[in-house]
């Protein structure tokens, strides 16, 4: 039981209120308060992503950070579909987009409900958009986090998937977009907003930023220190 399988970190990307960056750039990551500074499409996507302008803020934020992580890992481009998974931790999901869609349903019994906005009322649509652009066909879904976990459950789930051998590379991380509504319900401390993703792989690579593993369902650095959140991997 619980045989240890060492997993490589091939890259990482993040978007926060202080900007955006990649693990390889060794910038000082700062999860400062405030709205994430979502990059423009041309700043992150080498091939045009024409739909980017139509994305809601949650999807833009997530796609940008996933793109940065894949670019950092040298996995941005592929001519063929490939079995890479994407696991996203989120607390607030796409709640803001739900509210925006609901506004369109209010008049005339919903006659004017927006089909485009409805499409973005599921938290996994961001993964679908990323999967289409980057040709990813592995397991893709979101998992919840408790308010202070910041990607921990995605990390654990990603490591579980890699350990099981279902696929050999997973993009895992955290995404919580702007949601004004929650200021009523949660303490200011919980108002963390941004996106951080890492590319985890059981494959060898020329660029490896670290090694982690899963033991008894918990994530650890190779040094034996427990990983509390994806922040630990990027800071």
């Amino acid at each position, binding site marked *: *039981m*619980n045989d240890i399988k060492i997993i490589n970190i091939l890259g990482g990307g993040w978007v926060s209120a202080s900007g955006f960056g990649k693990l390889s750039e060794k910038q000082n990551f700062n999860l400062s308060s405030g709205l994430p500074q979502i990059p423009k499409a041309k700043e992150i996507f080498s091939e045009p992503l024409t739909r980017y302008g139509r994305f809601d803020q949650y999807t833009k934020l997530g796609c940008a950070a996933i793109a940065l992580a894949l670019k950092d890992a040298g996995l941005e481009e592929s001519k063929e*579909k490939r*079995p890479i998974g*994407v696991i996203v931790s989120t*607390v*607030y*999901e796409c*709640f803001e987009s*739900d*509210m925006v*869609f*609901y506004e369109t*349903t209010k008049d*005339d*019994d*919903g*006659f004017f*409900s*927006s*089909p485009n906005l*409805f*499409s973005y*009322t*599921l*938290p*996994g*649509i961001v*993964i*679908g*958009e990323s*999967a*289409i652009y980057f*040709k*990813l*066909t*592995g*397991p*893709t*879904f*979101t*998992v*919840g*986090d*408790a*308010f202070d976990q910041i990607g921990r*459950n995605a990390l654990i*789930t990603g490591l*579980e*998937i890699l*350990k*099981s051998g*279902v696929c050999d590379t997973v993009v895992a991380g955290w995404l919580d977009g702007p949601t004004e*509504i*929650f200021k009523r*319900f949660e303490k200011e401390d919980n108002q963390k907003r941004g996106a951080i993703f890492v590319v985890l792989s059981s494959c060898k690579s020329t660029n490896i930023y670290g090694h982690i593993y899963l033991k*008894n*369902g918990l994530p650890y650095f190779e040094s034996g220190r427990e990983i509390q959140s994806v922040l630990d991997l990027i800071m």
Partner: protein
Amino acid sequence: MREVFFTKAAITTGLGGTLHENWQKMMSAESAVGPIDYFNTKRLDYHNASFVNDLRLDPKVNHVCVLTERVLDQIGEIPADTSIIWTGIKGNAQFIESGQKMDKPYLPVHYREWVANQLRIENIGIEVNAACASSTVGLALAAQKINSGECHSVLVCAADLASRFVHNGFSALKALSPATVRPFDKNRDGLALGDGAAAILLTDKETAEKNDYTLLGCLKGWGVANDANHITGPARDGCGLILAVENALKMADLKANEIEAFCAHGTGTVYNDGMELAAIETLFGDKDLPIFSVKGAIGHTLGAAGSIEAALCLMALKEKTVLPTSGLIEAEDLAKGRIANKAQTFAGNNILTTNSGFGGVNAALIIEKA
């Protein structure tokens, strides 16, 4: 690798309050899909859904919790070290529709905490959202946690409502049926939503024996794959579903010809059912494989669909019978000889159940008779 067993299963839908009641009514090809009374649809082209009729008596209480309570009551006591996986996907609809006049916004994390509190469980686990394949992925993850030895017991739990929010959304996408939901029919024209909840307990064998649980079925294999095609439309060749099923077969160490029955997602939309039939053709060729869909009977129960269907598969394995597909009149060409509006018997011990969802996700489970 530990074996993973279904040891408790409870469902509630517009058709019935228990798994047994649902099974009996589905065997008679009954349908709970009918006119919508709970919100106005006058300006829309779509007026049907399946409702649990006594659910919305008190507008101040959370209806997802009320529905979930009904399946938790049936499940009864579970091991104290059980982990929870919540797979409901639109639990905030009532909060939004109420004008935010509820005590909290009902995020998924609130539901899994609520379930854990109801059951006095310490390990509140995680929630999973894979759109309409959420329960299926939840069961797969539960199996993985037991398989690896991380958990001995996992409760996969979900409830979703036929809400105005989602009805209007599917209406805008023109994905609803203006008449009768007819999965895999030549003249199918859309889906209908349905209230539904499910709770399924998966355990390892030791836990089942220790608690004197009946083994209802064995989860032999699972697969999850994205088709990387379109956020609301499936790949027409079924490539994502094919990949998910192939992965499940590989994990179960089975060949396609060893699958004896198939519980399809079968929403009744032109594109979903067409995609599934293309995948079935590729995977199973001319094999004699009875298939069925329950969405004509209970509507599409969103995040609960996968667990409801897995529970019905346990009954199918026990009875060696697949359910009639309610609403079916004339089968689509590729479904002919496989689907029927009456019950079909089958031999063998392995059943496949799959679900697909927005965002391109596809999930497959292979369940073996215990």
